[in-house]
C-alpha cells in the first residue's frame, strides 16, 4: 500500500507538471483569442483551481462554524 501510494503521488506530480507545461506551450504556440484579461496568464486555470479550492473549503467551513451548522436534533 505504501509503495502504491508513493507511485500514485509520483504520477500526480508528473501530471501536474505535464498539464502546466502543456498549458504554457499552447499559450506560446497557439495563442487564441482571450475573452477575459486573466486568460492571458499562462496557467491561470491551475492557479484558479488551487486558490479556488482553498477558498471554497475555508469560506464554507467558516460559514458553517459561525452560522449554519447546528446539532442534528435542532429541528426536533
Amino acid at each position, binding site marked *: 500500500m505504501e509503495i502504491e501510494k508513493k507511485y500514485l503521488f509520483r504520477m*500526480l506530480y508528473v501530471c501536474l507538471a505535464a498539464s502546466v507545461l502543456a498549458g504554457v506551450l499552447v499559450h506560446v504556440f497557439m495563442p487564441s483569442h482571450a475573452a477575459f484579461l486573466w486568460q492571458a496568464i499562462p496557467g491561470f486555470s491551475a492557479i484558479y483551481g488551487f486558490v479556488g479550492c482553498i477558498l471554497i473549503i475555508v469560506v464554507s467551513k467558516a460559514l458553517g462554524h459561525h452560522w449554519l451548522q447546528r446539532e442534528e436534533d*435542532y429541528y426536533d
Partner: protein
Amino acid sequence: MIEWMHPGLIFILGALLIPVLKGKWKKTYLLLLPIAALIDLLYMSKGVFWRLPLLEYELVFGRVDQLSLVFGYVFVIAAFCMTLYALHVKEDGQHVSAFLYVGSTLGVVFAGDLFTLYLFWEVMAFSSLFLIWYRKTKASSEAGFRYILVHIFGGICLLAGIILHLQSTGSIVFDSFNWGTGWGYLSSYFIFVGFIINAAVPPLHAWLSDAYPEATVTGAVFLTAFTTKSAIYVLIRGFPGVEILIWMGAIMAVYGVIYAVLENDIRRVLAYHIISQVGYMVAGVGIGTWMALNGSTAHAFCHIFYKALLFMGAGVVIEMTGRSKFTELSGLYKYMPLTFWLYMIGAFSISGFPLFNGFVSKTMVVESAALSHLPIIWLMLEGASIGTFLSIGLKVPYLTWFGKKEKEPVVEAKAVKEPPKNMLAAMGITAFLCVFIGMYPQALYRMLPYAVDYAPYTASHVIGMSQLLLFTFVAFWLLRRMLHGTPTITLDTDWFYRIAGKKFIWFCEKPLLDFANSIDKVPKDIANSFVWFSRNPTAASRIMVLTIGAVVVRPFDPTSTRYERDLEELRRLYPGESVHRVAIGTGVLLVLMFFTLYLLIYLTHGILWV
C-alpha cells in the same frame, strides 16, 4: 388508426398493470415499457398532435419539436436505467408511482398549452411524493409533507399565472412569455415563480435538499432526473434570455457547492450538487444565445445520467450498510470496489473531466458566458466546477470508500458486499452512456435544438480543465483533514418554514386565540346581562336605579349607607319572586281600560282621520 401514441401515456397506462403481474413477468414488463416508449419516440414525426377541444380552448398534448424530443429521449432512456436499478424492489406502489412520475414528466415535455402543462405538473408533484414516503421513516414522512406543500405552493403560483395570462392575452398556447418590469407582466412573474420552484433556484430550493436524501434508495434515483430537468425545459420554452436567470444560475452553482462542503450525509451532498449543476442550466437559459440554450439542453441531458449514476452509487452504500453519514462510514473500498469505480465515473463526469460527458456540456455553457462577455458569471461557473470535483470527486469517495486509518471500516457485522446484479447492471449502463457521450459528443450535439457550432476538444479547453481539476486535488490533499464529516446539520432556507412555521402555529394557538376569546367575551357579556335583566325586570330596574342613586348620592353624603343596604338586600334576593301579585280587580280594570280605549278609537277614527 392511432397516428401518434403519447409516450407519457405508455408509462401512465402501463403503470396500472404493474400490480397485476407477478415475478419474472413483472420484471420483464417493467423493462419493456421504457423500451416501448423509446421506440415510440424514435418513430415520432415532428408536428402538433392530439388536439382536444375543451370549452372554447384547444388542449395540445403533443407538441413535438427538436427541443421536446431531446428531453423526451433522455427521460425515457434514464427511466430504463432507473427501472433496472429498482427492479428488485418488491413494493408495487413504488414502481407505480415512479412510472406515473415519468409519464407525467413526459406529459409536461410534450404539452403545447398551459392547461395540459398544469395538469401534468401537478401529477408530477404528487406521484413523486410517494417515492419519498415509501421510505416509511418519520423523517421521510415529514420531509414528504414539506416537499408537497412547497410544490402545491408552486403549482398555485403557476395556475394563478396561467389564469392571469389567459385573461390578458386570451390564449393558452405555451410559448415564450413577455418579460419586463411592471404590473403588466404579473402573469409572467407568477408562472416564472412556479417554474423556478421546480428548478430549485435559491431561496426556493430547500425542498430538494430536504426531501431527496430522505427518499427510498431507488426512488431518489428517479427524483434526481425529472422535476428539475423538466423545469429547465419549461424555462427554455418560456423564458429564454431572461437576464435575471443568469445571476440566479450562477448563484445556484456556487450555493450548492458551499453547502455540499458542510454536509455530513452522502445523498445530501449529492442533492446540493443537483442544485449546483442545475445552476449551469439556469444560467444558460438566462444567457439565451443559441449556444447557451444548446448548452443548457446538453447539460440537462448529461446531468441526468451522471447524477443518476451518483445517486445509484450512494444508494448502494445505503442499501448495503444501512448508513448514510460520513461520520459512520469509511473503508468500503475493500468490500465494494466495483461500486466505487462506477461511482467515480459519475464523479468524473459531473466534474467535467475530458472524455466524460460533463465536459462536453458544461464547457458549452461556460464558453457561452465568455462569448457574451460575462466575466463574473464565468468565474462563478468555473469556480463551481472546482467545488464539484472537491465534494463529489474527492470528499465523498475519500470519506466513504477510504477514510481514516485509525478508524477502520465502520460497517455492520453482516457481510457488506457488492449490490444485487440488477443494480450493478443499471450503474454499468449509465456509466457507459456517460463515457460514450463524453467520447462521442456528436451523438448528443446532433439532437440539440439549434445547430451546434462548438468543439469541446480543443487544446486550451482540455488543458485548462485538466489544470483546474488537478490543482483542485492538490488543495484538497493539503486541507483534507478539514473536510471530515461532523455530526451536524446545516441550516438552509427551509428554516423559514420549519422554525418560523412552528412559531406561527404557536402564535395562532396562544396570543391569537386569547385575542379572539376577549373579542368573544363582549357580546357574551351583553347577552348575559339581558338574561339577568329579563329574569325579573322590575327588581332589576330597581337595582339599576338604586345603583345610579348610590353613585349620585355618594359625593354629597359619603356616610350614607341607605342605598348600599337596600342594594345588598335586593341583590341577595334577586331574582326573588318573579311576578308582583296584584288583586284580580286590577286585571279586570286594565282589560276594561283597554276596551274603552279601543271603543273610543273605533268611534272617533272616522272623524279624526277621514
